[in-house]
């Protein structure tokens, strides 16, 4: 491993490798990515892999619309020899309360302003999009056919292969154990395999971002929260879009091979690093999903696993600089890091190379300082 670099990126998930790619594309040399395990072994490889643009704020709309545009051509751009499996099968978001109906109406107005042709569905229309949905309690739904999903393993590999071709060093099984600063500037990354002198460090450590922040003396108010997922055996095609219910706090989608993937949030989840599976999840997931989509009761569960959301206090990413010169943050994605990784990486790279930012207002809206200033970002449309 080299002992000098211009930039050290901490984390070999989608965000870390995408940032490395955007930097080297802009001519930055001597980039090292540190990954303590294998690529996409953290939240990236464990996520539900959905990509949605139906958000309720301008910021999240810009992040997600920009990312989807990149996903559409990413495979060609990265010259990846395999399929990253990007498919736009849509997101279907049912509303079950008056409050949700009102919120969705506001959202759709904003979304259409951004050029998204999101459809408003009355209950009688819903089965045209999700034929197996139970209509009980359903008041309305929104549906956007350009939302979709892609394969997180392939996408990470695609970025990583492009990075390596261009000369990025990706050091696997190499853990960051300390950060050396002098006069509030980054001096070196101390790893399990030696010290790397460097000017900049990017914290893309996902579930471990708070620990990495502490190494540089930067207190990041993120925390890790376990989210569990399961997948069934492949069955005949039943529905195409991701079905995401804020009311039930779950999402589910049928994968291209017929398997159905699903997850449900647990409000009692403790703030800790934990990727064990529980029976409680299996039970709760099964009972809720079969209420909304009854035919799924016949599908057999093949596997369940867990990953960590890196939560920020306002459930919105932290993208930006810190009081330590050369220490950048790309963390706190709160469950949405994968779907906006093309924009996150572009913004961080623009920031580090002093280019104008694609979304200039992130500097004051997504920075770490917002928590001290008390300017929390409020997104109404999160699970």
């Amino acid at each position, binding site marked *: 491993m080299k002992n000098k670099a211009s930039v050290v990126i901490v984390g070999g998930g989608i965000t870390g490798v995408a940032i490395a790619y955007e930097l080297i594309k802009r001519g930055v040399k001597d980039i090292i990515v540190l990954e303590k395990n294998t690529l996409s072994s953290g939240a990236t490889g464990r996520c539900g892999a959905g990509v949605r643009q139906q958000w309720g704020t301008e910021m999240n709309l810009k992040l997600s619309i920009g990312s989807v545009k990149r996903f559409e051509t990413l495979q060609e751009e990265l010259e990846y020899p395999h399929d990253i499996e990007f498919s736009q099968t849509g997101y279907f978001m049912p509303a079950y309360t008056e409050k949700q109906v009102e919120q969705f109406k506001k959202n759709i107005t904003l979304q259409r302003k951004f050029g998204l042709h999101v459809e408003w569905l009355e209950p009688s229309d819903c089965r045209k999009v999700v034929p197996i949905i139970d209509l009980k309690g359903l008041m309305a739904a929104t549906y956007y056919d350009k939302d979709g999903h892609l394969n997180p393993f392939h996408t990470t590999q695609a970025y990583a292969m492009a990075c390596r071709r261009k000369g990025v060093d990706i050091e696997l099984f190499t853990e960051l154990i300390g950060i050396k600063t002098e006069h509030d500037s980054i001096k070196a990354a101390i790893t399990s395999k030696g010290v790397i002198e460097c000017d900049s460090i990017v914290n893309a450590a996902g579930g471990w971002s708070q620990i990495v922040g502490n190494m540089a003396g930067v207190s990041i108010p993120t925390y890790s929260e376990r989210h569990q997922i399961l997948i069934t055996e492949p069955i005949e095609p039943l529905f195409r879009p991701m079905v995401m219910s804020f009311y039930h706090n779950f999402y589910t989608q049928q994968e291209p091979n017929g398997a159905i993937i699903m997850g449900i949030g647990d409000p009692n989840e403790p703030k800790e690093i934990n990727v*064990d*599976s*529980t*029976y*409680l999840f*299996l039970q709760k997931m099964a009972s809720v999903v079969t209420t909304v989509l009854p035919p799924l009761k016949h599908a*057999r569960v093949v596997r*369940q696993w867990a990953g960590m959301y890196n939560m920020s206090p306002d459930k919105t990413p932290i993208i930006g600089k810190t009081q330590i010169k050369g220490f950048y943050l790309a963390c706190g994605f709160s469950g949405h890091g994968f779907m906006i990784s093309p924009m996150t990486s572009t913004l961080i790279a623009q920031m580090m190379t002093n280019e104008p930012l694609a979304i200039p207002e992130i500097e004051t809206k997504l920075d770490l300082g917002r928590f001290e200033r008390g300017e929390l970002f409020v997104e109404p449309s999160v699970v």
Partner: protein
Amino acid sequence: MRIDCDVLIIGGGPAGLCAARSLLGTGLNVLILERDPFLGGQLLKQTHMFFGSKEQYAGTRGFEIGQILTREVQASPNVTVMLETVASGYYPEENFILALEKEKKLYQIYFKKVIVATGASEKSLLFEGNDLPGIYGAGAVQTLMNMYGVMPGQDIIMIGSGNIGLIVSYQLLQAGVKVKAILEAAPTVGGYFVHAAKVRRMGIPIFTQTTVKRALGQNALEAVEIVNLDSKWQYVAGTERKWSCDTLCLAVGLSPMSELLWQFQCEMRYVSELGGYVAKRNAIMQTTHPDVYIAGDVSGVEEASSAMLEGTIAGFAAAKALHKMLDSVDQVIQNSQKFLDEMHRGPIGEKIRNGLAKVEVDVCL
């Protein structure tokens, strides 16, 4: 539904049955989970007579040993058997095994000690066309022939000259199937000399440094393309030849089914001599998780005789840990350990000895 037991045994093959037998008369509440509709595991497919000593049923055929053990265990009032029941996972936070009976009923099984005797699964080989009908694992061929009386094909080529490849070839001959050849990728025959000599005498050729490159056929296997291998296991160009056959049997080894042990967060190690990932254990078959014991192929792929001894040891060790022991428990455990050591002695046991040296830990946990 919730079930509570003292000792949970996962797998009703030779290891699990012998573990249960060790627990007879202890008064402990023992539960065996078995995936198949019957107990006995791989013993039921074994028509050959066992070697060794009287204690290890020398001279008795495998399926008969399975029947004897099954009768003993089923007659015991403190052992419950759940058939067609899969142990589908261990949940660490809730600390139970989730079991699915007949694909219908879920049980949460709480236990004080668990003996994992899940056995092994067959390895396959990567080659073009390896999913054509007519290509079987050796275990599947044995199941068809020896349990259901179904002939797997007429004209067969065997891949692998380990004991399973040799014994199954012989059984196929006995069943009237033409065994064209046994192919072995290594430079020497893998199994016991006595088995190899027997199939050679019956006229089956064994080709070493030879393997299958492609399987050919429209809707089912019609022929295979075979090829020679050099000392670095690479194809020797120009040696490809096509042999017709309707069945290809892969006897290329087994992998321990250690998924549950991973879920128990036992310390695991990859040991090629033992077939794959196995848990570290001490002399009484206890893993690094103090409540988890292992026995049989899951602890390292060997044969039924060693599985039975390991099961016996694990059963007594679990009884001892729960303070339900015979006065002579240490003596009984030592006896089984002695038999096991004897089995591993000599040049034939060398590979297993080497493998075990990598996972045996001295400390009594």
